């Protein structure tokens, strides 16, 4: 049986022919802007961090298990692939952290002017890159 909501999708085009009306919004017709790009990046970073928790839990469980289990986890994190994953995780973490603070700022009703939204957006991108580089340098120096 057809979905009753299909009735709402029935329409006519400019020539009068029956068409199935398109769904809105069409994200692909909009020019990417700093607002929309940073918004979807917040979600992408969040999902990446969720995947990254697998590494966090592996590291914790290995430390609680045995020297051999920990050596395996440490060897992965010390490998080239491990470094790329940790670097990506660090960038996702700082971006989600900084943009999360931006969201909390909005939640208390501040920073909604377009100029402020653009300024805080650029600040978030700059701060997350700087914090990522500093974190990775500190991590290498501490080894």
């Amino acid at each position: 049986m057809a979905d009753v909501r299909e009735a709402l999708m029935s329409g006519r085009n400019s020539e009068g022919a029956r068409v199935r009306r398109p769904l809105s919004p069409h994200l692909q017709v909009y020019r990417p802007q700093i607002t929309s790009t940073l918004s979807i990046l917040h979600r992408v970073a969040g999902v990446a961090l969720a995947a990254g928790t697998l590494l966090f839990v592996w590291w914790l469980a290995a430390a609680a298990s045995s020297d051999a289990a920990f050596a395996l986890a440490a060897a992965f994190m010390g490998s080239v692939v491990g470094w790329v994953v940790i670097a990506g995780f660090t960038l996702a973490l700082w971006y989600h952290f900084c943009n999360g603070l931006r969201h909390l700022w909005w939640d208390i009703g501040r920073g909604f002017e377009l100029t402020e939204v653009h300024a805080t957006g650029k600040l978030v991108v700059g701060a997350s890159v700087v914090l990522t580089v500093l974190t990775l340098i500190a991590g290498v120096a501490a080894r």
Partner: protein
Amino acid sequence: MSNPTHSQQAAIMRSMLGRARGLGSAKSGTGHWWGQRLTAVALVPLGIWFVVGAIAHAGATRAGIEHWISGPMTATLMLALIACLFQHMQLGLQVVIEDYVHGESCRVATLLAMKAATALLAILAALSVLKMALAG
């Protein structure tokens, strides 16, 4: 005049708000919204604390990590971090799934699988911390 029937009485007694409540697409939302913000605020200091601690213990041996995590203060903050992190992650992934997975049965199945996975990861992480903290 005869007494109103049960349904008529219900129509009179229930406010407009009472009838509208729970009829949205997600049936509820305030608790979810607030939980996401509360855990986000808690994760600000906990996240900074963990990153600093992780940098300080980069390249440490298992014994070094165990010594760090088994301290009562560290173990307490680690458990708080794990609780907030996985709660925040579950709430966030729930919204992503609700937005992108269409079809009732597929969506419910994905949500249940995600909730089970995040719960198991949280238990494993917490148990690992407790094992190190209580063994020392």
